[in-house]
């Protein structure tokens, strides 16, 4: 009964969050055709700028622009500056056109997209709930709700065949357990790492999928953000380091089976091995970030083609759109595959590193 209540409260939470966002979306409709707008009507379409704006983080969740009206979800800005916290909604900036409480959102230059203290010109510590933070929190609430409700059906339908959502995700859970954790870490020790590996896999996989949805509440390029992949890589690095046994450190400091002159007087092998300790998680971080971002950039590139050609000639734009959409669909299908493969690779490599850290000398 207690668990059931929790499940319900998760649904309520999601409903609440979505509701609040929808309401605030309507609030933030801002009509900018009235003036104070720096850009003119003959603004040249810049594909590179558009693409980058779509794959990076932002202080507001932009949904669409109709004419000069931006429809976006404002997000809370949390700044830590000169020893105190400053909190306000990002809609106060009016998409960067206004200052608020002595801060402004840079639209150009070196600090583009960042919040700057107008007086001192320094960047305050920005702990804002940005688009990616919001997407991450929403996806986490969703993942928690999903798996806690599945867990409930495991306790409720003990020993029975899986049903519904449970039977959809059970093969993946078993896949992670039997084909990733068990062979990489070993029958004896794998259980300890299962919670991390499962969380990692489903967080990456589901966020890859959400990233493919082109509109709110999807569309945030979460797993294609280097901070997100970096934090996950650091988690893997820390777990690897803390579960490492003596054999692992001996391998690094005094690699067996290597001629002595590679270790003394110049510790060539130890240096290479220590570098390897850090390159492993670094590669994890870059691989996921680059794969997901690249996929998004390609799809956005195809879309940009329509507008580039459309600016030359409207007919040409329509003609190119057929080809572009066909390629974008193809890329979308490919991205579905990549979404799974990258989640799998990240999880598999993490599991392999854990296994290597605990390998007994042979």
């Amino acid at each position, binding site marked *: 009964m207690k*668990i059931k209540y*929790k499940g319900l409260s998760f649904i309520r939470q999601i409903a609440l969050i979505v509701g609040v966002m929808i309401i605030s979306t309507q609030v933030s409709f801002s009509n900018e055709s009235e003036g104070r707008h720096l850009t003119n009507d003959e603004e040249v379409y810049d594909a590179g700028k558009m693409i*980058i704006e779509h*794959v*990076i*983080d932002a202080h507001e969740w932009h949904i669409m622009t109709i004419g000069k009206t931006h429809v976006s979800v404002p997000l809370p800005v*949390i700044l830590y500056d000169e020893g105190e916290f400053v909190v306000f909604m990002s809609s106060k900036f009016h998409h960067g056109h206004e200052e608020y409480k002595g801060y402004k959102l840079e639209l150009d230059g070196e600090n*583009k*997209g960042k919040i700057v203290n107008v007086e001192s010109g320094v960047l305050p*510590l*920005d*702990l*804002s*709930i*940005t688009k*990616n*933070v919001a997407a*991450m*929190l929403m996806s*986490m609430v969703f*993942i*928690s709700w999903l*798996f*806690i409700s*599945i*867990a*409930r059906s*495991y*306790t409720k339908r*003990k*020993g*029975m065949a899986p049903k519904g959502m449970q039977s959809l995700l*059970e093969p993946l*859970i*078993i896949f992670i*357990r039997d084909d990733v954790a068990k062979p990489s870490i070993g029958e004896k020790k794998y*259980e300890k790492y*299962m*919670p*991390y590996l*499962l*969380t990692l896999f489903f*967080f990456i996989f589901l966020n890859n999928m959400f990233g493919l949805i082109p509109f709110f509440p999807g569309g945030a390029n979460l797993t294609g*953000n*280097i*901070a*997100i992949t*970096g*934090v*996950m890589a*650091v*988690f893997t690095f820390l777990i690897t380091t803390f579960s490492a046994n003596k054999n692992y450190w001996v391998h690094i400091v005094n690699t067996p089976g290597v001629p002595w002159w590679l270790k003394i007087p110049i510790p060539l092998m130890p240096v290479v091995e220590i570098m390897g300790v850090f390159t492993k998680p670094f590669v994890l971080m870059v691989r996921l970030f680059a794969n997901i*971002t690249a996929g998004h950039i390609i799809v956005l590139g195809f879309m940009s083609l329509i507008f580039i050609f459309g600016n030359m000639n409207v007919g040409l734009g329509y003609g190119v759109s057929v080809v572009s959409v066909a390629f974008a669909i193809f890329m979308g299908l490919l991205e579905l595959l990549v979404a799974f493969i990258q989640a799998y690779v990240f999880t598999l490599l993490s599991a392999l590193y854990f296994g290597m850290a605990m390998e007994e000398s042979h």
Partner: protein
Amino acid sequence: MELVQPGIGLIFWMTLSFAALIFILAKFAWKPILKGLHEREASIDDALNAANKAREDMKALKFSNEQMLKEAKEDRDVILREARAIKDKVIDEAKEKASAEAARIVEAAKENIQYEKMAAITDLKNQLATLSIEIAEKVLKEELSAKNKHKDLVERLIGEVKFN
């Protein structure tokens, strides 16, 4: 460059909430799920083992049934054979008994005949004696009449005597 510059805020929130997510899911989701999976697998294994065992038992039972049937058939054959033997024996005995009885009856009849014969002979002897006495009487009576005739008469009389 913005692409590869990680945002401090994002790192902060991600670290915090990812750790929380791992903790929450580990406690409320993965633990019951993995436990449930393990239990289900164990129960399926048990069920399969039980089914295998039942199959083995069935096989053994079937085998023992066949064995029993075979033994029963053998028993039946033995019993039938014994019964046949007993029947033959009984018939033989009966035959023997019957022939013995017949022999006994024949013997008894023979004895009886012998006895009757002896009795007849005795009777005959007695009669003969009586006859002899009568003959003697007659002879004696004849002797008084004719001497030669006596002899003839005796001979005639003796010739007349017939052993029946």
